[in-house]
């Protein structure tokens, strides 16, 4: 009888000592589905690395960005692993806020990471963040509606064709919008999409002397097209729709077409979440004047702030969460459509993934053909497809996003909106000393 008590006690004592030795790292991340899965697999990491325990801080994207910026800019040292995007990685690396990840182990297979993604997270040849998942953008459409109307999707659709199809399929009486696009203002919301549209219409944010070009003919044409397309053939209240709202609309069958992140594919193909899973088609993001910059490149990545005093443990976590083994672990425990996409060649070579995710090869092509260093028809001084990789862009992008949303709702004309945007941007850039 006494033994029966002794064993659990010994267990407790052991647990207490290992807990006392364990180093606790704090990981800050966003509340996206792939990160929620990572959080739920924490115990697998802690079992494999008994010396490290993980604390999570999960916040909404914008709150997280502000929170992390405050901490990293002041050297607060509150976080050991941070979730950042391709926008922040080079900017923060330049300021010396991030730890360079040059000495990765052979077993990690850094060369397996997709090149455009790896380049997007590098600065001066050093990698500063490891990609957790990556995405491009593409066109989703309803195969049943296209068949009914006798439309055949070409290999590379153009925006002009998209407008014709949208006009044909638009059926507000049956709650069907010809097309759904982002309208909610924000540099990561409507401007992510609008920037790709402007790129393919031949426009750019800045000329090589950093003069804004928002009132150029290309911008006028692109925004005029956007307002006309979404205003006439979009869902009601399109100016308040972001990624989530459009995802809900499309998966409920309220959109004939939708151009947005490739990471939506897994959700749209999941019959539990989507009513159109069996009627889903996809095509490359439409183009107009030029194919350059017509689809974006974004990656959520994990980085170690220079202010962390547990960098070694943090790196252990980082390499685990972005490794091939982690992707396999997710595939086996959560299903292959749930694996974090867009980071590794090996994911796309995996037979299980190819079988379960018919969009796989397509997403790989989209990511591989996105080039953040050369995304505009005329040369531009900045890096980034759907954003401009300078610190000022957060405020510029959001401000321009608001003026474009105002044009979409009809509060201001397109020309007026772009003039306002041009003036505001020129002022911000002048103040920033460009």
């Amino acid at each position, binding site marked *: 009888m006494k033994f029966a008590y002794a064993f659990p006690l010994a267990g407790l004592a052991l647990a207490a000592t290992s807990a006392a030795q364990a180093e606790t790292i*704090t990981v800050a991340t966003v509340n996206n589905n792939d990160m929620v899965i990572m959080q739920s697999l924490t115990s697998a990491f802690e079992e494999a690395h008994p010396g490290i325990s993980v*604390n999570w*801080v999960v*916040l909404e994207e914008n709150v997280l960005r502000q929170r992390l910026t405050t*901490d990293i800019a002041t050297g607060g040292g509150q976080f050991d692993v941070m979730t950042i995007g391709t926008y922040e990685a080079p900017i923060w690396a330049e300021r010396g806020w991030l730890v360079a990840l040059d000495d990765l182990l052979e077993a990690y297979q850094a060369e397996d990471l997709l090149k455009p993604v790896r380049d997007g997270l590098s600065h001066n040849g050093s990698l500063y963040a490891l990609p957790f998942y990556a995405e491009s953008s593409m066109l989703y459409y309803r195969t049943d509606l296209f068949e009914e109307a006798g439309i055949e999707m070409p290999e590379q659709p153009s925006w002009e064709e998209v407008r014709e199809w949208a006009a044909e399929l638009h059926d507000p009486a049956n709650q069907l919008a010809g097309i759904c696009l982002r309208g909610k203002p924000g540099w990561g919301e409507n401007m992510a999409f609008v920037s790709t549209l402007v790129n393919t219409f031949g426009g750019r944010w800045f000329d090589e002397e950093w003069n804004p070009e928002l009132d150029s003919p290309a911008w006028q044409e692109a925004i005029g097209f956007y307002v006309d397309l979404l205003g006439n053939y979009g869902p009601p209240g399109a100016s308040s729709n972001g990624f*989530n709202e459009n995802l809900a609309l499309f998966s409920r069958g309220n959109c004939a077409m939708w151009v947005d992140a490739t990471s939506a594919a897994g959700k749209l193909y999941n019959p539990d979440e989507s009513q159109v899973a069996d009627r889903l088609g996809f095509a490359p993001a439409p183009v107009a004047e030029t194919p350059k910059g017509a689809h974006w490149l974004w990656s959520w990545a994990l980085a170690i702030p220079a202010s962390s005093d547990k960098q070694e443990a943090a790196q252990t976590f980082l390499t685990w969460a972005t490794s091939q083994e982690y992707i396999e672990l997710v595939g086996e425990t959560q299903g292959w459509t749930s694996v974090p996409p867009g980071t590794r060649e090996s994911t796309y070579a995996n037979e299980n993934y190819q079988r379960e995710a018919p969009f796989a090869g397509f997403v790989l092509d989209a990511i591989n053909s996105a080039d953040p260093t050369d995304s505009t028809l005329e040369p531009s001084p900045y890096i980034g497809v759907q954003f401009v990789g300078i610190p000022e862009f957060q405020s510029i992008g959001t401000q321009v996003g608001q003026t474009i949303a105002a044009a979409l709702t009809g509060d201001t004309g397109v020309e007026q909106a772009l003039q306002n945007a041009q003036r505001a941007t020129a002022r911000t850039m002048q103040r920033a000393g460009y």
Partner: protein
Amino acid sequence: MTTLKTKVLPAEGHLAATSSGARARHTPLMPSAGMRRLWLTLLGWGIALIIFFPILWMVLTGFKTEAEAIADPSLIFTPTLESYVAVQARADYFKFAMNSVVVAFGSTLLALLIAIPAAYAMAFLPTRRTKATLLWMLSTKMLPPVGVLVPIYLIFRDLGLLDTRSGLIIVYTLMNLPIVVWMLYTFFKDLPRDILEAGRMDGANTFQEVVYLLLPLTLPGIASTGLLSVILSWNEAFWSLNLTSSNAAPLTAYIASFSSPEGLFWAKLSAASTMAIAPILIFGWLTQKQMVRGLTFGAVK
């Protein structure tokens, strides 16, 4: 006194109906009086429902599935605890709730400890500058908090107060102090000075005066001030999100972790929010009488 109480009590909660109801009992019933009372009752209920509706909708959404939550609004659905289970699996509610309780009550106690002597001095021993001091204190509330975020963050970093409950208690105390002093000052000012003077005649010193006369006599006012401070601290989200990460994060940080621009999360967010407001809601219900009494304290002389 007792008759008055029994008359008023049944109608409590329907303030609009109370006055007409009381009058209806004393005047001979005219046909229009009944109608008027009915209308007022309906109006009272209507307004109460409109105010309460967002909370009700949040509670209902918490019991839906994510697909139902984002579908067209409907009152008919099969309630499920799915979201609550998911929410609890992701984060330990009790850790966050404990932080909220400690921080909200800790900062309120500290604020009262500082504010009672301050308000006493201002109410009973005013100088030429008292009015100006009071206004100056209030002016600190006019600064947007984000304006001092970086300096405070740096000070906290150097003092090792980041992500600690004591750090949050200090910030909340300072944040609520102007309001607490102002409220106590108005309550104290309403107290006839003669009572304190009588105490002094009987040989009470300042400390005894405060403890045996001032505090018992203004207790409802102090209680409602404290309650307000607790509620303000409980709901504060800017500082709690910015100054904590994992150890001292209160319920506001807990709710924030379920919001996202990508993916379906409405039901989980609602479930988390319901759990976050539940303690303060219950606390509010239990202390409702104190609150109303305190807020109307001294209104009628």
